[in-house]
């Protein structure tokens, strides 16, 4: 018997649980979908695994690794469905969680409500102690106040406790002593201390992150136990990992103690896939563009690395851990086009969603949507059922679009064209702003289009951004789950040891800081078998001019020690990046290195070879009409399944497949790569 070892990716979405599996010996791939079981997602997970075993004829022991992306933590935070949680702070500061940064998210809305702080005031406790800004102990941890808090916690019924003391990022002694006391006294109550999660100042953001972590611990522990039970005997040989917001994977042990790391787990899978497809096709800089029914998710990958942000917000609550930056825009196929009171044309943010859905779904929707417009323009062919089963009603789409066309004195086609233009302009603006935050120029990127609507808009959006290349993956519908297959295990370590570039021995001090990070990493990873073997290290410094609030993340590479040459390079790179981002740099001015970061990555198991293109089906194509910028053009309509590597698709064209449709406007080139992915190139800037 040939021993095969499968790697499996499972992505649980709102409707479907997607599974992608690959045999590391033969390279065979398998894609499947089962319905998500929202009440207990572990059931859908298990069904997907069982279906795989059946279809591939696998025995227990042949599934080596399962990588799992889940929106469980995100949804729990947004819906505030978490266990009763308490917060313990330094005396005088129990309200920092509620006061927050006291700025409002909308300037004009008098009905605004501030987000619920997750821990009510009766469950926020204080202990007497104080550590100063220079890490010195000003008042020791008062034993009597600790006893009193423990007593109150014991009768409070909470399942989890977050511990956040002032200045613990610099001196965690009190916080750790307190956490130990709580763990010893509170039995099965989960305890999370801020210094175990992050070592960066800003008390509110650290408190928010820690409270979310504590509140998620019971939920995630329970979920992982269910998954482990569901895997049963397979669990002995199958190693399970969860997708971390930072783009790496977390072992179940790590996920149990740091579940807030799952806050962005869902969209990260798709970002992974973008990294891999960029690698396979030779595009290290890509923008992931995942457009669905209600929203479009945008992610940046530069030099093969997803852009991280330290400013993740979930359900209005900040999470200050490095996370893959995914920007969600309220623009999707279901976005509704409307006229305001003075007949100005607007699109969104209202969405017809899946129910009633666009007018053309024939499910009672009568407002014109982006999907209706794509149908009218011939970019979604009427006779090709959506997702294989949903027939589209062109007349209903026209009726809906006529309601905005007539008051504007436009034909239905002109109005539809306009709606597409407006929705694309909205996405363009949002992408430009996010690129500016990171100091990037869109022209250096390729666009990867996935999700149901991504490939319909991608080429025109790329043109607006002066992006020359669009990649449409072979399987846009299960693209996210594919990325999970290649997951690595990754841990981030950060330290705040501020130092100025002009201080004496700056290079040596930076060297020491990285030495300290190595010690912290070694201690935390000592018992982790994944890190017993070869690991890769990346290091980064967060650098700014004195007095700035935001740092620029500058990579630093060295072996052994940071010498003066390495240090000077870091400083020069900082000035360069600053100039690119904000249009100026002060090269004579010293800068400040605020935070040092170490990312340790270990690969687990055998990696899969890049997938070959699918076996091809029958070639099938015909001619049809498509409307493009007011002109009716003759265009090619072709089935994706019949395309072979090397095939050219002559623009304009519409490429059909079950889970996505690609529109290739005139004036560009398109061909099928050896990987089976569709490459659209030579896109002229609009």
């Amino acid at each position: 018997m040939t021993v095969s070892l499968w790697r499996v990716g499972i992505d649980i979405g709102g409707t479907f649980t997607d599974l992608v599996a690959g045999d590391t010996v033969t390279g065979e791939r398998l894609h499947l979908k089962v319905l998500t079981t929202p009440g207990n997602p572990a059931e859908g997970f298990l069904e997907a695994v069982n279906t795989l075993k059946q279809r591939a004829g696998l025995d227990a022991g042949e599934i080596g690794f399962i990588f799992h992306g889940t929106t469980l933590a995100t949804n729990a935070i947004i819906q505030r469905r978490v266990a009763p949680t308490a917060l313990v702070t330094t005396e005088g500061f129990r309200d920092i969680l509620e006061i927050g940064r006291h700025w409002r998210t909308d300037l004009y809305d008098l009905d605004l409500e501030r987000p619920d702080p997750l821990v009510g005031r009766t469950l926020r406790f204080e202990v007497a102690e104080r550590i100063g800004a220079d890490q010195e102990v000003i008042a020791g941890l008062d034993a009597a106040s600790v006893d009193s808090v423990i007593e109150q916690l014991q009768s409070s019924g909470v399942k989890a406790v977050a511990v956040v003391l002032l200045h613990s990022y610099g001196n965690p002694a009190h916080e750790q002593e307190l956490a130990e006391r709580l763990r010893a006294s509170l039995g099965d109550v989960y305890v999370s201390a801020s210094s175990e999660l992050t070592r960066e100042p800003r008390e509110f953001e650290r408190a928010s992150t820690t409270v979310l972590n504590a509140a998620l611990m019971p939920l995630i522990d329970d979920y992982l136990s269910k998954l482990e039970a569901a895997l049963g005997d397979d669990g002995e040989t199958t190693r399970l990992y969860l997708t971390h917001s930072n783009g790496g994977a977390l072992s179940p042990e790590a996920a149990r103690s740091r579940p807030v790391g799952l806050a962005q787990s869902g969209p990260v899978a798709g970002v992974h896939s973008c990294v891999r497809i960029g690698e396979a096709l030779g595009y290290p800089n890509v923008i992931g563009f995942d457009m669905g029914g209600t929203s479009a998710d945008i992610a940046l990958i530069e030099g093969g690395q997803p852009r991280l942000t330290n400013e993740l917000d979930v359900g209005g609550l900040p999470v200050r851990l490095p996370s893959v930056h995914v920007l969600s825009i309220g623009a999707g196929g279901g976005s509704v086009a409307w006229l305001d009171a003075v007949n100005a044309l607007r699109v969104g943010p209202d969405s017809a969603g899946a129910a009633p859905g666009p007018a053309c779904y024939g499910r009672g929707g009568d407002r014109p949507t982006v999907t209706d417009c794509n149908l009218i323009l011939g970019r979604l062919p009427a006779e090709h059922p959506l997702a294989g089963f949903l027939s589209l009603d062109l007349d209903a789409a026209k009726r809906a679009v006529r309601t905005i066309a007539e008051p504007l004195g436009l034909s239905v086609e002109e109005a539809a064209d306009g709606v597409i233009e407006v929705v694309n302009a909205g996405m363009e603006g949002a992408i430009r702003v996010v690129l500016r935050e990171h100091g990037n120029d869109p022209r250096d990127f390729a666009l990867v289009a996935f999700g149901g609507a991504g490939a319909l808009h991608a080429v025109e959006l790329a043109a607006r951004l002066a992006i020359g290349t669009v990649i449409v993956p072979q399987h846009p519908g299960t693209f996210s789950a594919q990325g999970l297959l290649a997951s690595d295990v990754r841990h981030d370590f950060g330290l705040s040891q501020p130092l100025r570039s002009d201080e004496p021995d700056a290079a040596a001090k930076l060297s020491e800081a990285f030495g300290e990070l190595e010690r912290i990493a070694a201690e935390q990873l000592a018992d982790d078998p994944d890190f017993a073997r070869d690991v890769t290290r990346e290091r980064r410094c967060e650098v700014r001019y004195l007095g700035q609030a935001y740092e620029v993340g500058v990579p630093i590479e060295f072996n052994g020690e940071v010498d003066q040459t390495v240090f000077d390079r870091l400083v020069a790179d900082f000035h360069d990046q600053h100039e690119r981002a904000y249009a100026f740099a002060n090269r004579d001015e010293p800068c400040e290195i605020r935070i040092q970061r170490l990312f340790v990555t270990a690969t687990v198991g055998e990696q899969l070879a890049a997938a070959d293109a699918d076996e091809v089906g029958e070639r099938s194509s015909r001619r049809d009409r498509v409307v493009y910028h007011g002109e009716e053009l003759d265009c090619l309509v072709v089935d994706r399944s019949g395309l072979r590597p090397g095939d050219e698709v002559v623009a304009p064209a519409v490429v059909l497949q079950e889970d996505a449709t690609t529109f290739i406007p005139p004036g560009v080139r398109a061909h099928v790569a050896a990987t089976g992915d569709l490459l659209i190139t030579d896109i002229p800037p609009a």
Partner: protein
Amino acid sequence: MTTELPTPVRDSASGAPLADPVTVEVVRYGLVAAAEQMATSIERSARSQVIREMLDYSTALFDLQGGIVAQSTRIPVHLNSMTRALQTMLRDHFPLDSWGEGDIYCTNDPYAGGQHLPDIMTFSLVVVDGEPVAICGSLGHHLDVGGRGPGSYGADATEIYQEGFRISPCLIAPGGELNPLFFQLLGPNIRVPVKTLADLQAQIASLDIGRAEVLRLVDRYGADLFMAAMTELVNNSEQRMRQIIASLPDGTFTADDWVDGDGLDDEPVPVKVAIHKDGTDLVVDFSGTAEQTRGPINAPLAATESSVYFAILSMLAPDLSSNHGCYKPIKVIAPPGSVVNPVEPAPVVGRNVLTHRITNVVHAALGDALPERAVAAYYGNSNVYILQAKEEDGTPNVLFEIEVGGWGGRPDRDGNECLSAGIHNLMNNPIELVEHEFPLRVMEYSLRADSGGAGRHRGGMGIRRVLELLEDSEFSSQFDRVKFPPPGRDGGEPGATARISVIHDGVETELPGKVLAYRLTAGDRVVIETQGGGGFGPPSQRSAQAVRHDLAEGRTTVGAARSNYPHVEVK
């Protein structure tokens, strides 16, 4: 008096609008994205906490007449605030045909359309093929521009000459090359020049970003279509604003309120407004408001107008795409020489005392016209305080803070606790950073019990902050509503007044709201308590459940609950 609805730009031959609705909307997205990118670049690269944490800056794009077309507003009091300065500059100082490509113009002069001296504005023209198409502008509130008080808050200033370095409209960078004289003159006149000059640099650099973004739009649509689209955008907003105004009942709606005093003369300052609604116009008349004060709380006309615009937009049209079209139907009557339109050389640095009160009275008056949108008064002041200590080398170390308070109760719910409201919007400074940068220790930062005005829907809570000084320092402040609390509405009680006190050697002394350079010694404590919002509706109608919830959470005390809500049994 009824004004004709604006006519859109139309092609003389066909009569069709030159800019179609699609291009108009697409250009709007492009302009907003341009202003946002300018703002992002300032926020990310600025040095002083005023800009980076308090977000006290704005960026905007203007048409060639100086009318605002798109703005990234981080703070409402900046709404349309650059317009008056830019238009004054174009009219009285530098007509458009004297502007060259890349030139950067600058001013902070409250008597040339500005608001107060710390707000420095910079402008630059976008030129395509030798033809001007638009103007970019950025405004930053700078940490210090000199004058008699740190942060340029001279609470006892009686003339603008004492308030800092005044920049009359001038060309600071011909062709984009910064004239070194400008920084040479400014630098020695201000505290902490390193941070301020660096922030100015970030502000100036953002103009380049704005210009590049506008150029891209012009490249795509052509200058004529781009400019026609801007005109159409403005016309659309004006037309929409007029429709909304038309839907209000005809009549005159009045309100009045008080400012504690100007910090010098302890005289209450009355603020009165009468809003006449006639057809599609609103006339906002401040006749009867106090004469300009000796102390620096006067609001220059630009500040008064911005707060009127904000108060009206937030009540009537929170979602309207905001540009100068929205403001055309609104006429502000502010008698010259009054506290809402002072004449030179009245001091103005504390103009936010007035702009908040203007917002309070306009909200109150419009509440009578539109009862379902009415709100009780929010805390109503930018509670500024400034601490100054000396660094080891003798240079000043300045900490600038603004505290907020509670929102007013609303027809269907309580006011928010301790959240930015009205004409400003800002972040607090993280305590862990403040303690690094200034020799003090924060001992308490909490919600202030019983501060929300009682009512069917109570006002939100103010805050309580206790500071301990680690070194000798000076304390200055610009508080208001220390005497006159935020009023309730429809039978609701007023919120708590603000309070500042100092504890020295165990003895607590209450300070007035506005003080300059009060001496503190190491070990002293400063206790700051901010205003709660006014209550909405009679307290007797508050539900027992809501009262008990507040009690359980310590948001109200047993004594206060018993006296405010006798209908609820309290254990």
